[in-house]
Every structure is written in structure tokens, then in C-alpha cells.
């Protein structure tokens, strides 16, 4: 059984869309945070919109740390009701998303990493399939754009770690709160 990890850049008002405002804060601490989670994962799990954005830009990127290479090489599983032709080493999750992701989760392997993909996160959160949230909270109120947490059901979480980076970004890691039995 592998873990599903959702990782996201968030403004203080919870916006995740097109986080170009995060670029200005990039430093080695954030690079390490993002590097660690990617190299602890052996597949990406993403929604259609994130897939389209990523498949457009990542194949052209390179870097010295092997980050882009890993982004490009890893298998991707995409939740979409409208696309069936996928590139970038991506496979469509056929049929019901919750069933499909549950099957993937039962396989052995490293983590499956979710970037962005608010609708998918919403669906998986409500099906209790997300094992970890890795959130970088930026000291900015953006005032517009799609939020990461969409309206839906309530979930209780548990804070695993809290780190203040020296650029004022706060790294918060949560897991679902233990179920009462």
C-alpha cells in the first residue's frame, strides 16, 4: 500500500491557481522541500487541468538536480472525463476515480504525488484517500483565483510538522486525524 501525498503552494487566502507569485520567494529551503517530496514519489496523480499545464511546460525544462527529468520520466495518472489522448508518460484513470485511485494505492511503491488538481483532491479527500498534505503558505493575499480546498465535506486533520522558512513562507504538513473507532 502506498501513500497519496497532496502538495501545494498556497497564498494566505488559499489560492492555488497559477502561483507565479510564488516564484519571487524561491530559495534553497523550498527547493529542498519540493525535491524531497518528488524523490519520495514514483508516480504523479493529477487532474486534467494540471495535466495540461504541466505537459505543456515540463518537457522543455531541465535542471542540475534532476528535478525536471524526474517530473518527465515518472508515470502520471490523470483523472479526466473529457480527454482520452494523453502524452507525457500519462495514463487515464479509467472509470470511477475513487475506485481507480484505490487500486493504484494498493500497489507497492513509493508515494503518489498530487500537485494542484483541486477537484481531484476534493474527491479523494472526501473518500479519505489522501495520506498527507504538504502546504507551503506564502505571505501574500492574492485576492483572486481558484482555491485549493473546494467546498464540500468536513475533514479533521492532524498537524505533523510546522517549519518557518526564512523568506516568511510557512511549511505545514498534515495527515488525516486518527479515526475514532
Amino acid at each position, binding site marked *: 500500500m502506498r501513500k497519496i501525498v497532496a502538495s501545494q503552494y498556497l497564498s*494566505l*487566502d*488559499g489560492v492555488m491557481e497559477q502561483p507565479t507569485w510564488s516564484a519571487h520567494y524561491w530559495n534553497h529551503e523550498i527547493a529542498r522541500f519540493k525535491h524531497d517530496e518528488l524523490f519520495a514519489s514514483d508516480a504523479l496523480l493529477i487532474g486534467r487541468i494540471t495535466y495540461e499545464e504541466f505537459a505543456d511546460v515540463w518537457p522543455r525544462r531541465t535542471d542540475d538536480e534532476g528535478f525536471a527529468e524526474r517530473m518527465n520520466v515518472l508515470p502520471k495518472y490523470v483523472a479526466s472525463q473529457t480527454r482520452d489522448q494523453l502524452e507525457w508518460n500519462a495514463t487515464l484513470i479509467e472509470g470511477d476515480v475513487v475506485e481507480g485511485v484505490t487500486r493504484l494505492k494498493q500497489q507497492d511503491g513509493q508515494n503518489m504525488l498530487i500537485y494542484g488538481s483541486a477537484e481531484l483532491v476534493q474527491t479523494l*479527500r472526501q473518500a479519505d484517500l489522501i495520506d498527507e498534505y504538504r*502546504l507551503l*503558505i506564502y*505571505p*501574500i*493575499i*492574492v*485576492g*483572486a483565483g481558484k*482555491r*485549493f*480546498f*473546494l*467546498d*464540500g*465535506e*468536513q*475533514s*479533521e*486533520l*492532524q*498537524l505533523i510538522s*510546522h517549519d*518557518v522558512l526564512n523568506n*516568511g*513562507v*510557512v511549511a*505545514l504538513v*498534515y495527515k488525516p*486525524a486518527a479515526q475514532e473507532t
Partner: protein
Amino acid sequence: MRKIIVTAFLSLDGVMENPMWTMSYWNDEIARFKAEETTANDVLLLGRVTYEGFAAAWPQRTGEDTGATYFNGARKYVVTNTLDKADWNNTQIIKGDAAEEVRKLKQQGDENLVVHGSGKLVQTLIQHDLVDSYRLLIYPVVLGKGQRLFEDGTQTTLKLVESRNFSSGVVALIYEPAR
């Protein structure tokens, strides 16, 4: 000049509405954090919705409750163009252009103006660069519904001043504008 301090209980998805869900997380650390806001000789600045919620709840609390003593006793300004009277002890109504009126208020006296909740008012204050400090308690819960503190509005860049991690999994974040 007075400072305007925005303080709120927030879920991880940014909801501030009717924060009854915060009760099970209450502990000494949170009590101390809130006490830092409620022991000084501050003045409350509230939007109409928050005012009505507070005015319905606080007068019924007993004097044993230090929060009640503070909230019931403190001077309060409610920013509204719809209320004609505000009966809660020591409340004054502010009508007209909210930003302009608050800017005037900011120049009178030395006590801080503390804004609890009041999403719409906060939006106006951000837009006019009138907020001096944000004290946010982030709870480890995704609520999935309810009014957010930061609804759509103006972009503004902040500076993290302090961050504290409480044992109940609540994180306290204090920001100032990056002016």
C-alpha cells in the same frame, strides 16, 4: 497613530464563519494568544454581521468570564449603513464611506483597533491599506463550507512576523503588511 489589528480563527480552508468548531482545540496556549489581544485597552472595530453575532452572545456570558468582561466593556465601533441603532454596551455606529471613516478613527487616540472576523470590512481595510497586523489561528480542519475571512478582493504582500505551533495542532501566524 492607532494600529488596526485583524484577528480571526481560521480553518485550513480559510473559513471564519461561526467558529464553534474551534472549541475542541481550546487550550492554555490559545487562551494566552487570545489574551494578548484582550488585556490591553483596545477598541473593537466590527462589521455588521460580526457585531450582531457578538451582541447576541456576549451579554449573556457571566462576569466570571474574562472574555465577557472584555468584550462587553470595551468600546466598540460597528461599520454599517443598515443598522440605525446598536444596543450592545458602549457601541457606536460608523456610517458613510467605511475606508474614510476608519482612516479618521485611526488618527484619533492611541488604543489599537481590533477587528474580529468581519470579512467584508477586512476586505475594505486591505484595499485601502489600513490593516497593520494580522493575527491568525489556523486550525487543522477543512470545513468545506462557510464564509472565508479573505474573500476575493485586492492583492497585498505581507511579512511574517511570528509563527507559533500549539500542541493541539493549531498554528498561530502573525503578519504585517510589507510596506
